[in-house]
């Protein structure tokens, strides 16, 4: 190639020419690729934009278990969003969690929606959220009916006991104290769990607790106007005439508490209760099933004797019917008598007397009298109504207050206008016994034990003299007499001994007599055979037969 000039064709003219094909140009088609890519990108962006739902902010106490970009928000276990960002609030008192909801979950960004963190929870009532042990916590959501948009929410610290739209009814219970109940504590009807405690709060005046319970459908229809609720926590041990009775709802309530309800026996109003109906939560089934107490009345009693064994809460009984309870026992000082009377305050519920109370009220009204309890009690006191402290339990010595009619009660002045109402008292049965014992002792005191003793002493002295005389004189003489007697007996003994002449003579005489009797028998026998001998005399005896020798025996005897 070195010898050739540039620009001239090379020597190898034998070089072939290329084959000419008709080719279509593809220059513009290649631009379809970036257009396609751009379309895909735009589609992604549009899809992302379309899918983006509302962003909401939820406030929580802590972000425990939550991670930005990871923790899902779930409703009925369906993911409806994701935690986008977690940051502290301005005052660092809580955590602000920004959640990106999905487009379809727009309805969750409305007022009233509740959010809470689902974590594993282990309580006495059960275990929940076990799945979150492995997957980590998530935010649970619950819808509301509202459609007002809202993007700021306050997260609940515990899951709500009732989810939105759950069929059933809520009821409000008023109780003296919460007992061992808690949110989520079960509500039992005939020992079947039909609901749970939803919330509780202290009354504004601090004098009680208001609980909300939720009873699931269809069992909510068993709650009616006359239903009684009671606290079924713990073990109810009662010792009655039927023996020891132990009553519990379930083992879970023993530990964690619970509420039970039931209708009282007998005819009652069975119209199902409306939602949010109000009830009283009784302390136990017994008090829940008791007839309604009605309005309480405060009465006071004044006892002059010791009231050891009377405790606050002890029953007040009217003719054996539980009528109220002792609420206070205080001591007073009476200057006149210089004694310490005890003032017992009690709350009584006249309506517990049922028909009797109703009739008394009706009668009082008939007489145009004041139907006030003070007047009625005044009438009763005139008829001998008295309060007594009686022993309710002989083992523990516990007292109760009994209101009874005492037939021979001394008249007392009763002031119906007094406040509080004061019921006159009478010594109790035990006190009476004590009095009678004292009487007996007094009477015994009057017996002249000294004189009796003196007389007895004199008598004993004369007895002593008599005995001495007996000892000194009578007894020696008696001794002599006894010696004589012994001698006499010794003589008698000698006389009667076997070898005494008397005995021998007696034996001989008896032998003689025996012989005589034998010959006499021979004679009578003979005369029996020979009666003629009485006349003819006795015949000579026949000659005795000569014995014959035995000839065969003799030779044998001589042979040896």
């Amino acid at each position, binding site marked *: 190639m070195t010898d050739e000039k*540039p*620009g001239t*064709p*090379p020597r190898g*003219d034998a*070089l*072939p*020419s*290329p*084959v*000419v*094909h*008709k*080719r279509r*140009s*593809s*220059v513009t088609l*290649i*631009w379809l*690729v*970036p257009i*396609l*890519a*751009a379309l*895909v*990108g735009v589609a*992604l962006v549009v899809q992302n934009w379309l899918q983006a739902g509302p962003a909401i902010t939820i406030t929580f106490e802590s972000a425990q278990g939550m991670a930005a970009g*990871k923790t899902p928000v779930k409703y009925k276990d369906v993911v409806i969003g994701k935690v986008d960002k977690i940051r502290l609030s301005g005052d660092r008192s809580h955590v602000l969690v920004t959640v990106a909801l999905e487009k379809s979950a727009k309805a969750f960004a409305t007022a009233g929606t509740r959010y809470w963190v689902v974590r594993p929870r282990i309580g006495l009532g059960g275990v929940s959220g076990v*799945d979150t042990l*492995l*997957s*980590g916590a998530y935010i649970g959501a619950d819808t509301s009916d509202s459609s007002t948009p809202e993007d700021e929410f306050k997260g609940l610290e515990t899951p709500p006991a009732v989810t939105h739209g759950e069929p059933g009814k809520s009821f409000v219970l008023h109780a003296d104290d919460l007992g061992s109940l808690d949110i989520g504590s079960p509500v039992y009807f005939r020992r079947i769990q039909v609901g749970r405690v939803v919330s509780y709060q202290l009354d504004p005046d601090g004098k009680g607790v208001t609980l909300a319970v939720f009873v699931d459908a269809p069992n909510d229809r068993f709650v009616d106007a006359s239903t009684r609720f009671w606290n079924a926590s713990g073990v109810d041990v009662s010792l009655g005439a039927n023996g020891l009775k132990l009553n519990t709802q379930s083992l879970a309530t023993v530990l964690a508490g619970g509420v039970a309800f039931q209708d009282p026996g007998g005819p009652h109003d069975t119209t199902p209760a409306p939602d949010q109906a109000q009830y009283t939560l009784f302390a136990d089934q017994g008090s829940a099933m008791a007839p309604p107490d009605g309005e309480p009345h405060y009465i006071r009693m004044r006892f002059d004797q010791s009231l050891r064994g009377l405790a606050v809460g002890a029953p007040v009984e009217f003719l054996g019917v539980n009528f109220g309870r002792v609420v206070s026992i205080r001591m007073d000082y009476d200057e006149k008598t210089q004694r310490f009377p005890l003032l017992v305050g009690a709350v009584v519920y006249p309506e517990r007397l049922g028909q009797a109370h109703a009739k008394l009220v009706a009668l009082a009204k008939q007489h145009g009298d004041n139907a006030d309890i003070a007047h009625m009690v005044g009438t009763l006191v005139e008829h001998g109504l008295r309060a007594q402290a009686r022993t309710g339990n002989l083992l523990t010595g516990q007292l109760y207050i009994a209101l009874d009619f005492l037939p021979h009660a001394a008249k007392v002045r009763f002031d119906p206008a007094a406040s509080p109402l004061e019921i006159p008292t009478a010594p109790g049965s035990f006190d009476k016994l004590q009095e009678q014992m004292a009487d007996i002792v007094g009477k015994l005191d009057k017996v002249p034990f000294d004189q009796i003793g003196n007389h007895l002493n004199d008598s004993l002295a004369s007895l002593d003299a008599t005995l001495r005389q007996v000892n000194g004189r009578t007894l020696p003489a008696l001794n002599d007499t006894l010696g004589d007697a012994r001698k006499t007996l010794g003589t008698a003994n000698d006389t009667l001994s076997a070898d005494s002449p008397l005995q021998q003579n007696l034996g001989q005489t008896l032998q003689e007599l025996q012989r005589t009797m034998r010959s006499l028998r021979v004679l009578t026998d003979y005369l029996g055979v020979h009666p003629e001998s009485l006349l003819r005399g006795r015949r000579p005896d026949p000659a005795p037969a000569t014995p014959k020798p035995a000839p065969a025996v003799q030779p044998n005897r001589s042979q040896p």
Partner: protein
Amino acid sequence: MSTLPRAAELGLIGCHVCGQVCRFAGGDGDGLACPRCGSALHRRKPASYARTWALLIAAFLMYIPANVLPIMRTASLGDVDDNTILSGVVELWVKGSPSLAVIVFCASIVVPMLKFLALGTLLVSCRRGSGWARRQRAQLYRLVELIGYWSMLDVFVVALLTALVRFGLFSLVEPLPGVVFFGLTVVLTMFASMCFDPRLIWDGQDDSDD
């Protein structure tokens, strides 16, 4: 050094496949075929600029979702974790494997970016007929060709893990859409560098440096 004669000036055209040189004077050789092996003959790759640009732009467009969308989901004992390329790199770094993080970062972020930059530079400079650093640019092109294969590292990792880690509830790896876009990016950049004709570097004014 005097400029070497070009094949076009000599009225010659070479086959890229079998090396056959043909005599051909007119035009830029559109619609010609090698008389020996039948493959298309052309002086320069046809529409090299347009194709390279188109593919490069497409690759770049694909690169955006590849980085924004998660590429892999690892689920172990209910703990589901979606990772994009960058978050994966960060996680590796934070969790104490900086060397692995660097490798993944190089393979997934640096290399594609480098490719875009290199090809872009080559395209712009060649279009302008610049005579600047031709030899280095040729080297750059060879480098782009060489490292093109290695950019698929992420895709291989995801594919391998998805196939290997299948323990149901305990551990599970799933590919997510991001990896598809990443794979498309790599493929498109490779096509783009294939469409680029390095001879374009040497075209233009010959009176520049070399």
